[in-house]
């Protein structure tokens, strides 16, 4: 292709707009251009705070993991229920997610950016419009996602930030449950989203969320981490402490189950980062543990129930071959039945491993996945329940736990023996992790979607409440 010939309109995608799609979660924030397969910018929603020469500094993105600065503390602007708690910081984190990799920094005033000589005595006269030039999203429509229980106030605040702080010309706020249902081809579905801070069940009918049926509970990926921590405390042959890499200066390989042989790095108290930094890095090891070791007991009955031949399921699990895991300090062992125990309480609260120090209170029966589903279905019209059960959609990164889908299928078939239960879950890891983002990306890239956008003009006429009328 001749580089001097500009690409035709069709190659640019015709009248398709280069919208930005922003899918903010508790653990990660996903941002990218509409029309792309995966979000180009994937950053932790956590941010770091420390003081340097008396000034408060903030760190965003993957940089928060890198350097154990003195006094560095880690925070999250989202609440565990998926609703923003600290709006100022949420705005900054979200803004970082698209300015760092997508839109880039906007050019400043050429007279003040230090790159040009300002003629003496001559001050630039045209100063109007300078401020609007600085808004980061002045050229890009923005589609954002939200959870099904996001309150009106939070929705209005979101459009306010997008329109007034970021200067987006057009905005839309989409429910992630609806996006997940659509992404699997369904206008009606029961969407089960297993996230980091919460799990939710959202009934969607004819493209609308049935609000009375929406259920959520805190038993997400972070809860599973807390169960793994509880297990490590009482582990055999010895309790396990997770030591993140930044605290290790050297280590020697040891045999399975042997104490680690390791030299630690030490930080004097005035140089040490805050405890929240260590927790964040420990969480990374736990994520790896969840991906490599943890497994959901396949059923049909619960892990603690007696099995078919009078042998308890736990005994059966014990005799199956375990999975090895090596910790950053070199300690390694094979995990047998314990790899099932840490997730069993998502289905059966009796199996929860007690831990008085855990930030999570002991789970209640109503918080388990099967109960959430039961309550969600009880909250909707009896006629549509069979349709929802025939169209169960599973999404969210924590649903990738080995064996999760099979177990859920078993549980549902036992609870609802009559109607046909069918689960659909994307086999592709990216589609499961970024399901709502990808759905939003497809919609926002359609030329025909322009009629859905709330334009800046409409916002100025009607105020933030327009989001309630237009984004149902």
């Amino acid at each position: 292709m001749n580089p001097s010939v500009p690409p035709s309109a069709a190659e640019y995608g015709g009248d398709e707009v280069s919208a930005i799609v922003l899918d903010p979660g508790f653990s990660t924030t996903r941002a990218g251009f509409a029309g792309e397969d995966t979000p180009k910018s994937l950053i932790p929603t956590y941010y770091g705070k420390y003081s340097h020469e008396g000034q408060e500094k903030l760190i965003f993105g993957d940089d928060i993991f890198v350097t154990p600065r003195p006094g560095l503390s880690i925070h999250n602007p989202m609440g565990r229920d998926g609703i923003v708690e600290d709006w100022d910081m949420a705005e900054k984190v979200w803004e970082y997610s698209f300015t760092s990799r997508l839109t880039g920094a906007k050019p400043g005033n050429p007279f003040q950016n230090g790159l040009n000589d300002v003629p003496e005595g001559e001050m630039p006269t045209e100063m109007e419009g300078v401020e609007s030039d600085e808004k980061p999203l002045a050229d890009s429509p923005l589609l954002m996602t939200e959870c099904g229980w996001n309150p009106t106030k939070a929705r209005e605040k979101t459009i306010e930030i997008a329109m007034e702080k970021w200067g987006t010309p057009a905005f839309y706020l989409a429910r992630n449950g609806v996006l997940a249902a659509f992404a699997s081809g369904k206008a009606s579905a029961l969407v089960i989203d297993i996230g980091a801070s919460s799990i939710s069940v959202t009934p969607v009918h004819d493209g609308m969320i049935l609000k009375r049926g929406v259920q959520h509970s805190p038993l997400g990926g972070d809860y599973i981490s807390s169960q793994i921590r509880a297990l490590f405390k009482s582990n055999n042959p010895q309790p396990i402490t997770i030591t993140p890499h930044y605290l290790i200066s050297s280590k020697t390989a040891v045999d399975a189950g042997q104490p680690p042989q390791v030299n630690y790095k030490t930080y004097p108290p005035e140089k040490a980062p805050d405890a929240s930094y260590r927790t964040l890095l420990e969480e990374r090891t736990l994520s790896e543990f969840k991906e490599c070791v943890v497994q959901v007991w396949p059923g049909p009955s619960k892990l603690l129930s007696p099995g078919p031949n009078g042998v308890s399921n736990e005994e059966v699990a014990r005799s199956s071959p375990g999975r090895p895991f090596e910790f950053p300090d070199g300690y390694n062992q094979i995990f047998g039945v314990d790899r099932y125990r840490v997730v069993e309480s998502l289905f059966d609260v009796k199996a929860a491993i007690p831990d008085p120090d855990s930030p999570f209170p002991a789970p209640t029966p109503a918080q388990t996945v099967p109960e959430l589903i039961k309550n969600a279905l009880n909250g909707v019209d009896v006629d549509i329940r069979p349709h929802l059960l025939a169209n169960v959609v599973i999404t969210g990164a924590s649903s990738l736990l080995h064996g999760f889908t099979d177990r859920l299928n078993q549980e549902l078939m036992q609870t609802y023996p009559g109607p046909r239960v069918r689960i659909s879950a994307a086999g592709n890891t990216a589609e499961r992790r970024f399901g709502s983002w990808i759905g939003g990306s497809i919609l926002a890239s359609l030329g025909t979607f322009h009629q859905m956008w709330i334009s800046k003009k409409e916002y100025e006429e009607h105020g933030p409440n327009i989001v309630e009328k237009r984004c149902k």
Partner: protein
Amino acid sequence: MSLASGVQIADDCITEFNNFRMSGNVKGDKTKFIIFKISDDKKTVVIDETSKDQDYEVFRSKLEAARDDKGKVAPRYAVYDVEYELPGEGKRSKIVFISWVPSNTPMLWSMIYASTRENLKNALNIPTSIHADDKNDIEWKTVLGEASGGKAGK
């Protein structure tokens, strides 16, 4: 307004469907089903095929054989005139709206078809609908059961 793709419905679809609906009493030379698809430029719902074939299996295999412009499995919408007989009540017929989004459809088309479905269903104004993602969902028995409200085909 709920979340939707904004894909338009071509006027043809409505006209053709209304003719189909009105032709209820005409014997013999009568439309049996219409299949709709979303155009390759993703802008409009258009008619893929209108047929008078009385054999349900012909209809079903047409849905299963649907492909997109790249030769991949593709979704379709359809309306089908289901005729059935209830013991003691005589012959009945009912038009059913079917959305066919096979489970191995690429996500792009799944998303577009799912987010356009309500618009088309409302434009055609058909209360009875079936969503199908594998071929068992469009077996005659299933469709008959849905059309008759569970009274026929037991």
